[in-house]
């Protein structure tokens, strides 16, 4: 069935994480910290879907007009981001994505408007182009789009992956993505043609409980499954005012801690049913333990049982 009509695309996913490298067969782009989206644009409408095919425009109404800035009907792959102080701000994107009151959304859209940065085109005019090599798709992408504040084309450089990576370290950006120049677009596949090179690593954990600290800070107690048992994985901090904490607080409490063994600094923890999964960002230490772990967000598309040691 026609990709544009069925509007059911699962995007291609990054299948590998590596240290920075230079390569003549790759291009390098910034990894922007936002929400991965597929945009279906024709001459009268914008349809924006996230990875799970949920409609996003109600949350980001300021992107409703981006269809006006493409020349031909197309499907674009890219990242929905909000820039604050010159950088993509994931917290703001996340905060907006769980808002529902249209007035609050309107206020947020005025104060911190989102933009869609596209790095791939999957459909042009009347047919899909996923079998074209990446560099040809990039050319079509440039030809088809008039950039403005709300719709941008991702810049890429050739060969100098290490230099670009260093710049993201200097500017405290998330990292870069390397893509092989002749790669096709495989719908819904994790592929080694796309490689992420990240400053910060992240991983998924089960939210097992929380500890209220001073100054509105909360420590989230993290766990992972080993067989049927939950294994303690440490803490990640977050602000008490974060929208995700409301969701965590709403989970029913359980009387006892769910782990077999537990370090001492968990006396004041409130234990909850292990039903939520969260993403935690951290720097990697040589020993493999978490350094400066920070709660990034909840993720609804992964089951707790799938967070394994």
């Amino acid at each position, binding site marked *: 069935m026609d990709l544009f009509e069925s509007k059911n695309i699962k995007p291609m996913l990054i299948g590998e994480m590596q240290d920075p490298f230079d390569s003549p067969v790759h291009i390098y782009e*910034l990894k*922007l910290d936002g929400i991965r989206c597929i945009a279906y644009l024709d001459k009268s409408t914008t349809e924006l879907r996230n990875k799970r095919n*949920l*409609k996003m425009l*109600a949350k980001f109404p300021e992107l409703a007009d981006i269809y006006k*800035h493409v020349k031909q009907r197309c499907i674009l792959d890219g990242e929905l*981001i909000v*820039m*604050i*102080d*010159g*950088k*993509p701000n994931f917290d703001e994107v996340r905060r907006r994505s*769980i808002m*529902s*009151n*249209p*007035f609050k959304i309107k*206020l947020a859209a005025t*104060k911190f408007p989102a*933009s869609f*940065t596209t790095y791939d085109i999957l459909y042009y005019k009347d047919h899909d182009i996923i079998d074209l090599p990446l560099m040809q798709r990039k050319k079509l992408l*440039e*030809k088809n*789009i*008039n*950039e*403005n*504040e709300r719709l*941008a*084309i*991702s*810049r*890429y*450089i*050739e*060969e*100098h992956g290490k*230099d*670009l990576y260093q*710049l*993201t370290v200097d*500017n405290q950006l998330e990292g870069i993505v390397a893509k092989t120049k002749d790669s096709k677009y495989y719908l819904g596949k994790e592929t080694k043609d796309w490689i992420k090179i990240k400053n910060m690593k992240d991983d998924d954990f089960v939210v097992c409980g929380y500890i209220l600290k001073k100054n509105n800070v909360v420590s989230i107690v993290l766990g992972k499954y080993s067989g049927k048992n939950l294994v303690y994985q440490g803490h990640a901090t977050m602000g008490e005012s974060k929208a995700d904490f409301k969701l965590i607080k709403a989970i029913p*409490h359980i009387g006892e801690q769910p782990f077999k063994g537990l370090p001492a600094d968990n006396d004041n923890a*409130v234990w909850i049913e292990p039903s939520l999964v969260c993403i935690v960002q951290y720097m990697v230490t040589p020993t493999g333990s978490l350094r400066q772990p920070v709660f990034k967000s909840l993720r*609804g598309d992964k089951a707790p049982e799938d967070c394994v040691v």
Partner: protein
Amino acid sequence: MAVARKSVISFGLVAIPIDMYTATQDNDINFNQLHDEDNERIKYKKSCSHCGKELTTKDIIKGYEYDKDHYVVITDDDLEKIKTEKEKSIQILHFAQLNQISPIYYEKTYLATPEAGGDKAFELLRAALMAEQRIAIGKTVMGTRETLLAIIPREDGLLISTMFYEDDIKELPKSYNKPALSEAEFDMAKTLINSMNTPFNPEEYKDEYQGKLRELLETKIAGKEVVAAKSEKPSNVISLMDALKASIDQNNPNKPKKTKRVRKGA
């Protein structure tokens, strides 16, 4: 919109996996209570009415007031024991005419879409209900309660409405007279009704007070933001990306042509 719950409609021998989303939302403006001196939020503290001690969640248990100031204490264990068995699927009990059910029975409405693998059976159920102008009556367990449901077809998707039980519905609190009507009066009233008959267009109606309230807030917020907005530079992803790219080009002056320029739109 997050999935409110996942369920399965079991209908004869087929099981249709579905996602349920809340169908309505309250868009009203809500205010927070603030302290008039420093504009900070008011917090509630829980305390015991007898000893005055401040309490946290750990100190609080549940009781039912069966007589004035007399309570029976109910523990979580007590509740756990009588929980209805977790029957997560929605079992269709029978079908009924769409217009036979009084709106008083409808409680909260969800929108349902099929989950992967359920598309065909879902569409079959929806289309058949639509063609026959029927709804399905079913039961499921939500939380700890056994809940009665109506499954109502739409052009796009299904509505699932939770329903009140018969014993939740109140009777008319008092009787009133129904005086005899003359035919002329009755006809006149019917004529009047028919002369004002137009289709119901929900988009024609808006809460005008809420609209004015929003305008008021926007004006006040805009006044506050003016100061902040001026000091902020416009931060745009295009300029960020161009700046990074330019600094790479600078570091590699030997092959400036190798990094392709993105053409600016016409």
